[in-house]
């Protein structure tokens, strides 16, 4: 429009950005800033908050309950990433065919990945019900294994919830691997055939190197998902039995919403954020290093 005064042109992008900026500011940036301030204070319900400096962060360093939760979270992240990644890679290899029936199977096994975590948790609680006639116990009874207590057993609970994470992430990772497999140059396989390479050599020298970007994405997403895990734990075991499945986020949630210790909860939150950012930077650095070769 020629008639529009030119001096208002600068406002156009800001008008388009305004709704996004409002929601991002009010529901993301303000809470982040508020959380940072909270982590330096003792929050009081009456009267002004008390400045405590880095005391909450110091407390986090020597909090043994938090350390146990960090240990559980690390185990959760590492086992679910490795097992979920490797199994998803195998499933992707088995289902990379473009035949119609394979496409249908791929669609069907993706259902857990699009279902709410809260629902998956309820299904998990039914499948791993700790009675002799529960689904999982009936299954292992076929192999003459005695009935287990699963999520009610302090020694098994964490592994059962890790299994839930693996179950949910395999279909998701599979799609990423399938996209990676589709991107591998077919001529490389033909060249390997000419050289007389067998299936395993082709897998090692063509498929795996071609899937490095896919592996990198899978590992990164799985790490980020794992460190922030909350719903999967809260809705299955709630951190129990005896705190054996407590993870960083459930500790933060309980500290904040049950013990109302907002300041300390905010401090632990920020340690988690800092750690996540560090991990992302590390990942990008390693990725760039690899792609340079």
């Amino acid at each position, binding site marked *: 429009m020629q008639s529009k005064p030119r001096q208002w042109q600068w406002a156009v992008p800001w008008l388009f950005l305004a709704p996004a900026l409002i929601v991002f500011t009010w529901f993301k940036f303000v809470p982040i800033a508020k*959380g940072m301030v909270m982590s330096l204070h003792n929050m009081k319900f009456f009267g002004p908050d008390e400045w405590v400096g880095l005391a909450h962060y110091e407390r986090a360093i020597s909090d043994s309950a938090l350390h146990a939760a960090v240990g559980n979270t690390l185990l959760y992240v590492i086992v679910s990433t490795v097992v979920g990644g490797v199994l998803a890679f195998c499933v992707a290899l088995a289902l990379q065919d473009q035949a119609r029936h394979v496409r249908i199977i791929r669609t069907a096994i993706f259902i857990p990945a699009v279902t709410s975590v809260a629902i998956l948790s309820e299904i998990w609680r039914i499948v791993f019900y700790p009675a002799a006639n529960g689904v999982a116990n009936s299954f292992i009874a076929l192999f003459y294994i005695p009935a287990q207590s699963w999520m009610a057993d302090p020694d098994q609970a964490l592994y059962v919830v890790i299994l839930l994470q693996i179950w949910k992430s395999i279909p998701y990772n599979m799609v990423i691997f399938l996209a990676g497999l589709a991107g591998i140059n077919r001529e490389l396989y033909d060249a390997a055939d000419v050289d007389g390479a067998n299936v395993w050599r082709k897998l090692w020298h063509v498929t795996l190197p071609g899937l490095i970007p896919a592996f990198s994405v899978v590992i990164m997403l799985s790490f980020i998902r794992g460190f922030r895990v909350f719903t999967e734990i809260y809705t299955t075991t709630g951190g129990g039995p005896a705190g054996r499945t407590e993870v960083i986020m459930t500790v933060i949630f309980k500290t904040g919403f049950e013990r109302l210790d907002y300041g300390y909860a905010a401090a632990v939150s920020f340690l988690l954020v800092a750690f996540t950012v560090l991990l992302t930077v590390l990942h990008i650095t390693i990725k760039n290093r690899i792609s340079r070769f």
Partner: protein
Amino acid sequence: MTQTLSQKFARVVLYAFLLIVFCGPFWGILATAFNSATVQPGKLLLWPEEFTLRHFSYAWHEAKAYVYLFNSLLVALIGTALQTLVSAMAAYALARKRFRGMAVVSLAILSTMMLPEEVIAIPLYLTLQAKIPVLDVSLYNTYFALILPVVGWAFSVFLLTEFMKAVPQDLEDAARVDGASELQIFRHVILPLVKPALGTAAIFGFLMIWDQYLLPLIAVDKRELYTIPVVLRSMRVDEIMQSNIFIAVTVIATVPSVLVYLALQRQFNSGLTAGAVKG
């Protein structure tokens, strides 16, 4: 490719195994929900012994599953629509304009992608309870508290920005010469050209909002505002409910997101790989 009989057999066994592992539990809750006799907790059936809709009827009317389903659908649909619109507008500015402060804005939005939403739960809870300036109302315990915090989603902004960047400048220039206003260019030139990306952003947005758990948990404490994922746990924890009825509620809760996925699979898969390759 020729396959020997044993290879074919191995494939069939593998496919069956995968289907049992990933779909079996869903089949089990479906069959159990339709079974007339009440099953013991923890038991799932392969096939209903005597078919009935009684548990669904009870779950719907007495357990009020419709209230929670309505809440979930309302939040997910309105949230998706607002999220896609707000993201598309922001993406238009970031992809098609050059202005001072652009780098700061896009970095700020993108940085929230790295931030685990969960860690701002407590300050977000306090923000929702706080009175909004000017209007002097608090969002806590309203539908707004369930919807507005998910409207800003960096993934959606990022995805749409990438696609809008790919629209040739000539098309925009031609429209401008014809006297089209900014809003007309946005609505009639850019948006139609990125329709597939809008679809992808909307599906992912819907599934993301549908999966929200911590937000509804902290945003409302009135039961009639609960979404279906939140109500599941409280139904299990504080009520004595027959397991078939509880399973029927679980089935009702599972259906919408699975239907959305099955109906819109193509856009979904293209988005998943685009997001994976770029992100």
